């Protein structure tokens, strides 16, 4: 493929949105109450819409006879480039909110920068997405505060989720080869450039929520290179089921 690096770079961003959308989609009809259920699936839909824009672009530049559906449904686990954070399960509502919050703060900062990419399509997607992501961030930050500063039990559960998910945050700022090359070309974003700002903003919300900022310095990585946690296979089994069972099916 001629544009292999750009292709990989697009997937590095897009796969996060796809897998998180899939995780949130699992909650459709299972949210803790009607309003939250609708909110989570609304967020899922936004992310899925963004994913489609990225995949359509990736399919176009691949120079191969590919469609957005091929990219979404017909890759093997090692070819998905999402970070480990977004594939973590919906253990309890604290985890759903914790995962969303830790991702939203990152996602917002990434979209802010991507608006200035040299690549016109990525710029357009970022400009569209950031409006949606600002709503997601507001929603998840709000819930972090409600749960953290809520009852004794909600505080314990929210803290448990943040402590558990913390180990996946460092990976957000590790750069793959494709990312480094794209940064040099003025297309990609140097994610390490807003790492400090990220941890500051996260800490501020956690403090507001009367939660502790984890001191854990042990971090896990691998997702961006295609080495996922055990959860990923189950997500893909669900996600790919129809295409694998009935190849080339359409609605």
């Amino acid at each position, binding site marked *: 493929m001629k544009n292999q690096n750009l292709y990989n770079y697009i997937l590095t961003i897009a796969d996060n949105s796809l897998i998180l959308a899939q995780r949130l989609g699992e909650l459709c009809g299972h949210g803790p109450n009607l*309003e*939250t259920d*609708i*909110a989570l699936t*609304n*967020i899922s*839909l*936004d*992310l*899925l*819409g*963004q994913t*489609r*824009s990225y995949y359509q672009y990736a399919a176009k530049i691949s120079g191969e006879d590919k469609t957005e559906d091929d990219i979404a449904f017909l890759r093997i686990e090692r070819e998905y480039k999402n970070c480990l954070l977004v594939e973590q399960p919906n253990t309890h509502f604290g985890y759903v909110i914790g995962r969303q919050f830790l991702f939203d703060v990152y996602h917002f900062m990434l979209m802010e920068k991507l608006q200035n990419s040299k690549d*016109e399509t990525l*710029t*357009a*997607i970022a*400009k*569209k*997405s950031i*409006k*949606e992501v600002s*709503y997601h961030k*507001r*929603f998840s930050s*709000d819930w972090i505060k409600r749960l953290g500063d809520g009852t004794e039990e909600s505080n314990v559960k929210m803290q448990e989720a943040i402590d558990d998910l913390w180990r996946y945050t460092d990976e957000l700022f590790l750069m793959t080869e494709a990312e480094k090359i794209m940064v040099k070309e003025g297309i990609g974003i140097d994610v390490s450039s807003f790492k400090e700002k990220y941890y500051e903003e996260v800490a501020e919300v956690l403090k507001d929520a009367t939660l502790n900022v984890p001191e854990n310095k042990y971090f896990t990585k691998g997702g961006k290179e295609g080495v996922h946690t055990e959860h990923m296979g189950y997500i893909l089994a669900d996600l790919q089921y129809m295409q694998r069972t009935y190849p080339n099916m359409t609605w």
Partner: protein
Amino acid sequence: MTKTANIETQLIPVLETVSDPEIPVLSVLDLGVIREAIERDGMVQIKLTPTYSGCPAMDVIADDLKKAFSEIGKKAEVELVISPAWSTDWISEEGLKKMEEYGIARPLSESHDKDVLLGEKKMVKCPQCGSTNTHLVSQFGSTACKALFKCDDCHEPFDYFKCLK
């Protein structure tokens, strides 16, 4: 980057007949999602922009547009464009009025929108009784573009069209 849509006058009557499936009182023109509609060599070329990235109404709207033109014997092709990104400013004044009559509160200005969605101010007007004594139930409503509110005077729940800029 132009914000004004390039729509040929003779195509307007047909475009007016196509509505948003989720807010059927609004035509695609009221909503401001048609960015270009021109006729070249017997082919109507339309550029359509989504309100939100994942808006499921887009595919339906594209099909409805093609159908509307085929009924008058014209072929149409619809291209989805995402730049410049859609804004609630593009909804026409007439569209806003129709929306309110339909029971959806119109978007406030950007800063006021933030205030009401954070629950700090009461400014959203109940489309049923006109009271601004309303409160936010959920930042996300029945579709991505709306938030759910409830009126504390007439007690009716209603949708508020979120400001998007």
